[in-house]
Each structure stands twice: as structure tokens, then as C-alpha cells.
């Protein structure tokens, strides 16, 4: 979760790696200041936030956007997955393969090209003779179908909306 928080605040992947490492090292060095009766996670995230501020001072930039609501939703989804039975991550999301099989052929094909073969949307667009935007939209729809499948299978709680 620390890394998730770092990624939400700093989008440079290399910087995130470095900040994560610095957070861990700082936590180790200051472990004697940690009060055992308090939760460990917030303490660690506090260190990470300090590292982020130091990073922005170094690069002379203001901290980027605060999108706490989105992170809150992501954490909620991760909590839902974590609460599933199974010891490993793969066991907890074993329904994914079944959901992938239920995708329409064209959606499954694009998902395979992008995530399995690691092709960029530009390359897929050229292969399929369409635009990059169209590919991105199809991928987005495929992910929405998978989310819906997860909800139907109980991996995700269905979110009620006013709409």
C-alpha cells in the first residue's frame, strides 16, 4: 500500500522505486521510534509522505494532484480481493481466466495482444488497421466487462449508484 500511495503522488516510475527504497530504509533506521500500540501502516505511510515532499523539493516542483478518492476506491477493491479465500494472489483471482474466456472474441484478442504479448496500442492499431483511440476504447470496454464479471462472481462488491 505504501507503493500504491507513492505512485499516486509521484508518477515517475524510477522515482517511485527510489522513494520506496528510501522509505523502507528510513523505516528500518527509525524503527525504535515506532510505537507498537499504533498501527504500522499509517506510520510507514507518514515516512513515505515525507520522502515525497523531499523529492519535490529536490526537483523543484510542486507536489502533483491529490486524488485521494480514487486511491480510496482502489484500496477498497484491493481489500475486497484480499478478503477472498486463498493463500496466494493467483488463488484469490482465479476467476479471472474464466472472465477472460467470457469476453467476446475481438475483446479477448485485443486484451491478449496488449497484456500477454505486451504490444502497445499503436502497434495493435496498425495490425488491426484501425486507430489507436479505437484500440484504447476497446481495451477500456474489455476491462469494464471484466469488472462486471468480477462483480457477478462476487470478487468485487457491486456498487450501487443513483443512475
Amino acid at each position: 500500500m505504501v507503493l500504491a500511495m507513492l505512485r499516486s503522488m509521484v508518477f515517475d516510475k524510477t522515482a517511485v522505486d527510489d522513494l520506496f527504497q528510501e522509505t523502507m530504509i528510513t523505516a528500518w533506521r527509525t524503527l525504535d521510534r515506532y510505537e507498537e500500540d499504533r498501527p504500522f501502516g499509517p506510520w510507514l505511510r507518514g515516512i513515505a509522505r515525507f520522502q515525497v515532499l523531499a523529492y519535490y523539493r529536490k526537483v523543484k516542483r510542486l507536489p502533483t494532484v491529490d486524488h485521494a478518492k480514487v486511491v480510496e476506491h482502489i484500496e477498497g477493491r484491493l481489500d475486497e480481493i484480499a478478503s477472498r479465500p486463498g493463500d496466494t494472489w493467483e488463488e484469490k483471482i482465479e476467476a479471472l481466466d474464466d472472465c477472460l474466456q467470457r469476453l467476446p472474441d475481438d475483446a479477448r484478442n485485443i486484451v491478449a495482444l496488449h497484456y500477454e504479448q505486451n504490444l502497445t496500442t499503436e502497434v495493435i492499431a496498425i495490425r488491426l488497421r484501425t486507430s489507436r483511440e479505437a484500440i484504447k476504447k476497446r481495451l477500456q470496454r474489455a476491462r469494464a466487462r471484466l469488472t462486471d464479471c468480477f462483480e457477478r462472481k462476487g470478487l468485487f462488491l457491486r456498487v450501487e449508484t443513483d443512475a
Partner: protein
Amino acid sequence: MSIPPGSETNDSHQELADDLVMDAILQGHHLDRKITLESRIQRVMDDVNTSIHCREDSPSSGKTRSHRLARQGVGAAIAAAVLLAAGLTMMLVMTKTPTATASLDQTLRLIEREDLTFRLELTKEHLDNPTKIDLRSPRYRKSPRRSGRSAPPIEHFDGAALHVRGPKYVLLGDRDRARGLAKGFDGDALWTNGPKPPRSNDNPEGGDSILGDFFELITLDLHELIRDLREGYEVEIMGLESVMTDDGVEQQFVHRRADRLDGGINRLPLQIHLWTDSETGRLEALDCRGVRLRGLNETYEISLTLESDAQLPDTWFDRQSHLPDPKRGNQRPREHDGPRIGDPFPPPFPPFAPPHPPQKNGHRGRGPIGQSR
């Protein structure tokens, strides 16, 4: 998870979060997670061990050695455990694909995650008749020999390319006029190649300040500018503007207009127009209007138009990648010369360039022009 039914904003946050989670799940599904995790754990453990050895070697560490050694196991275990959990989380939250939310948050996020190349246009504003700068005017026709090492006037950056990767950027002067001037930030330091601004104590509001203001504006972190929209501007959504691409795919752009609330106390633009992709939230074009630079009476319009989001080489933001050719000195690059290492004006776009970016009215300049809704 208890997510109360709520506003459209809350729903869009939920949609965005779901899309990011599913994208991360799919990425992680095909990654070699074990190797990735072990590599990360090893990095931290190496540093932890180095730290311990350094403390042990220190004469002042004698009193605490046993305590720290006893703590090593606990600390390492905690670090490793947290690292394992965070590593899994990281794979879940890794994102690179845009989503349906067209919010400014998403625009900011994409600016950080993608390599974006913008074309910069500079227009001197007249009250009701903005015109392109006439570079044939004697005012702008300075001889390179007589001007010595003076910095080029800001007009020479009309047509420049601005490459952005998160906080890093490179501004490459226009091929014909800026003669090798490149300015950038490599993540650690600011750098400039080409003519340096003249030092002048008796002209504090002169060209040096003008150029400084100009650079301050166009090379500021795009995040800061867009953040300012919400803090110092009144933002209004003007509507959706549609474009039909050659592939028959309709693209829509959200057009926002932001007017300054304070009436222009500092040098931020009086008005900003912003076009973002309605599906992805990606910034497609940005117009800064009413830009006033110190020492100049006229105001300028500075426009950034997205030309490419193709990935750039990692070294692209380094100073060494844009050194002028020493054989030519101040001679401008010849058109028939091909790209070469260190060329200040290499072709900026890798092969897969997206369709033409929208013009200032939000259109991409090809296909039938859509209706503003």
C-alpha cells in the same frame, strides 16, 4: 467496500479506480512476479545490510551494537514483509492505460505517465486581431554576428518542440531560428545549450527578464499550470467538440475555458483554454492568452498542441543528447542533413505518430469538423 451511492464525481472516481485496478490485474497476470519481488527485496536488504555494517564500523556505535544487531532481524523481517505486500499492491496499481474519466485529475496523471511532445506557437496579441509574429520585421531581424552571444528573442521559439516526461522536459528551438538553443530539466538539474542570456545590471527589465519570464511560463511543470486552473481561475466547460478521424472513429474533446479570478496580479495567463480527450482525459491542446512578460507592453498567446505521445529515449532529456554540432558553430543545421547524434533538431517523433492534434478550436484538422455540443 462501502461506497455510498452518490454524485457523478463519486461514480467517475469509482469507474476510474475500477479501470485502474483491472488494468493492473491484467498486467500483473502476465508478469514474472517472483523475480520482480525478489529483486526489490534484495535491493532493500542490501541497503539495510550496508547500513548495519557502517554503524558497526563506527567507533561511536559500540554501545548500541547489540541492540541494533538484535533489531536487524525484526527490521529486515518487517521490511521484507511490507515489501512483499507492497510489491503485490504495486503490481495492482501499476497503470498506463487511460480511462474514461475526462477529469483534470486524469489529465494530470497522464502528463506524468506519458511522453508528450507539444508544438509551441507564439502569437502577439492585438486587441481584437491576434496575429502571428512577423519575423521579417526589422525588429526581429538581428544579425547573428552582431548580436554576439545574446539570447535569441522569444519570437524565435515560435514553432519550438516541447517534450515532457513528468517533471522532465526539453524545449528545442525552432529549426530555422533558434539555432541550436535547447533548454531542459533532466530530473536533477536545469540545463541550457546554445546562446546564454546576457548579464546586465543596468537593464533589469530588459531582454534577460523577458526571456526568463517566457521560459518560466512555457517550461513550468504542466501540473502546476493545470493545478492553478482550479486554484486561481474560474473554469467553465465550454462543451464537447467532435472530430471524425480518417479511420471513421469519432473523437471528442472537452473544451474548458479558465478565466483568472484576480484580474492579473502576476504573470500567469489571463485566460487559458484547454482541450482534453473526453475518453482518456489526455491533454490535447492548451492556449494561454493574455500572457504579459516584464518589459513588454504587448501581450502574447502561447499555444501548446500535442503532436505525439510516442515514447522517447530515456536519454532524450539529458543535456548531452542536444549538444550543438561543434563543427558548425552558430551555423544553423542544413535541411538536407539527416539526423545525427547530438543534433539539436533531430526528428522528434518516432514512427507511430497519432493523428493530427486539434487546432485551437479543438479540431484535428482533418476529417469532417464536428459540432460543438
